[in-house]
């Protein structure tokens, strides 16, 4: 007879299962952005010259700063998980708050970036944009839609981590119950990775 491993069933906590669900969910998120990256590739190959030109109008300094901010926030996120696993609730709470704060700073920078464009009259369907070449129109539409949907994910991620901070404060999360924080972290790293691709595709193709 083969050895039969008892498997946790029913309502018992299943950490592996919870993580698996999160990974599968992230996979669907990747495919959601995949549709956008598909559009990007098609239009980039169709209008490469215009993409080249329009990219020069983006603020590369602000883009770089935002990249550094998100990367740092991923670091604070993973450190907060380590701290929680080692039982240092206070430190973990501090690092979680830092992650949320960095996420918010990212969004504030994004807000200034977007406002600058809108101030110049560049936003979807604007007269200024419609007067440009077709490739430029598509570039800026892609820019607004892709960074917009990404920004929405940053907002959701920051909200979720803020929720985790509350749970940590209430003692619902601890060294033997950290899977929710770990899953939130996975989500946050995913959001970070998407930006790692958006940054070169929009800012660095000059």
């Amino acid at each position: 007879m083969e050895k039969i491993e008892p498997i946790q069933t029913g309502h018992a906590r299943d950490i592996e299962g919870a993580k698996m669900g999160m990974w599968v969910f992230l996979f669907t998120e990747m495919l959601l952005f995949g549709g956008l990256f598909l559009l990007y590739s098609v239009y980039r190959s169709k209008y490469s010259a215009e993409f080249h030109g329009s990219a020069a109008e983006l603020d590369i300094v602000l883009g770089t700063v935002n990249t550094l901010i998100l990367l740092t926030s991923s670091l604070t996120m993973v450190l907060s998980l380590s701290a929680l696993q080692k039982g240092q609730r206070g430190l973990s709470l501090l690092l979680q708050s830092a992650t949320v704060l960095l996420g918010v700073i990212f969004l504030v920078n994004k807000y200034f970036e977007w406002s600058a464009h809108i101030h110049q009259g560049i936003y979807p369907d604007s007269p200024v944009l419609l007067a440009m070449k077709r490739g430029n129109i598509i570039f800026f539409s892609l820019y607004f839609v892709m960074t917009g949907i990404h920004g929405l994910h940053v907002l959701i991620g920051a909200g979720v981590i803020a929720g985790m901070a509350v749970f940590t404060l209430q003692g619902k999360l601890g060294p033997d119950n950290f899977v929710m924080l770990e899953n939130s972290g996975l989500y946050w790293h995913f959001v970070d990775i998407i930006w790692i691709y958006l940054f070169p595709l929009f800012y660095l193709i000059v």
Partner: protein
Amino acid sequence: MIRRENSPHSGSFYDDGGRYRGLLAWLFTTDHKRIGILYLISVLTFFAAGVTLGLLMRLNLIDPGRFISERTYNSLFTVHGVIQIFLFIIPAIPTTLGNFFLPLLIGARDVAFPRINLLSWWLFILGGIIVVLSLFTGGGAPDTGWTFYAPYSIRTTSNVSLALFGVFILGFSSILTGLNFVTTIHRLRAPGMKWFRMPLFVWSLYATAWTQILATPILAIAVLLLVLERMFGIGFFDPTKGGDPILFEHLFWIYSHPAVYIMILPAMGVVTEIFPVFARRTVFGYRAIAFSSLAIAFFGYLVWGHHMFTSGMSDTSRIIFSLITFLVAVPSGVKVFNWIATLYKGSIEVYSPLLFSLAFIFLFSIGGLTGLINGTLSLNLYIHGTYFIVAHFHYTMFGGTGFGFFAGLHYWFPKMFGRMYSERAARAAWFVMFIGFNILYFSMFLLGLQGMPRRYFQYLPQFRTNHIVSTIGSWIFVAGLLIMFGNLIWSLARGQKAPDNPWGGKTLEWQIPSPPPRENFEEIPVVQHGPYKFD
């Protein structure tokens, strides 16, 4: 739910609602069986709405313009499609029979994420209500066809945005169900329930769940972009702004072709459970059936281009898409031959679940073989956008998935509700439906070959005879549906008490009381052998 003394429900999950009482015990339940029933009620309600719209379309075509205006007709075929696809046929089997029986079949107490399961039902209802609301608000019911092709879907003043938003939410619900099922199958199988000891319905749900996970996000982004296009004029699908409407077709079919397999795979799983039980012998070619489910899911992901042969794609891609389309027929054929081989030399007992399953094979085979005609590049150019296509997908989706769903309903009804239905009425319903179905849709094959285009409000005189035949078929078919649901609903209250195992099934769900207790199994069973061990 009706509860009486000595009712078959005492001690079952109908008695044990958890924290809440009354209706709330249903609306806030995390019990997979109750959620399955909630889904069943919702899905069948939407089905009734979809059938009604279909009947009205057929009514118009008997004498165009007499009963219904052109504009209304456009809305009818759009909303009929949206409801039947997103609110009936996609969720039909996984969320109802799947939710109810997946944990039972693998020996678990519930799915992996019971609360997410409830959330996905709530999202389903929310999405459904939004889709229905779009009929009566804004600029009137959507009139683009269920495919929402750009650029018309960008320009029309009808209420497309709201309907798209509803579809987006439904997609979310579908993803959560898929995610839940994959994790459940990986994590919650009973001890000894190895991968190749799982009932084949579970395998088909597994393949379906992966397809839901892999394909639905693309639909989500496609409809989201269409909404953004309508609200902000982003121009991705608008040629005047440098966009390309064909790209919308690609994004749409990258989801919507795999969705075809989200619809059919669970039905294949259902009939695979039924054949061994009524032939009283083990299934022929267990592994071949299991792997063919995965193969269908895999190839199904790579053939979306065959919906777009006339869109101006390059010949190279058209030939490749056509070739891969033919490859889908291989695993589908494997399944059909295995079902027939399972029946061969079995001691067959003919009950209504088997009759519905046999109808499934017959109708699905016609649908599948005409699918090869559609997939042939040269023939496709001739029949593209005609009634031939309409007949083809109704044979696969309704003749296939619909009849598979009805087979499963009759097979598992005693277990779900603890009562038997009238077998005579069920057979009568099956007979009337089978006849009506073929009259209704086979005439559409003929119309298509004659050149009648789909979605047309008016037609030339030479198409009249077949249109009348088809409409009469629709009445016969609906009469069959009424007998069937009348029988099942009557039996809910008046049927005889069902034994635990009325058909002599060998899978785990038949080893527990009908209807099952709240926690399914008093003790988690230890599985020692495959699912279809008949002596």
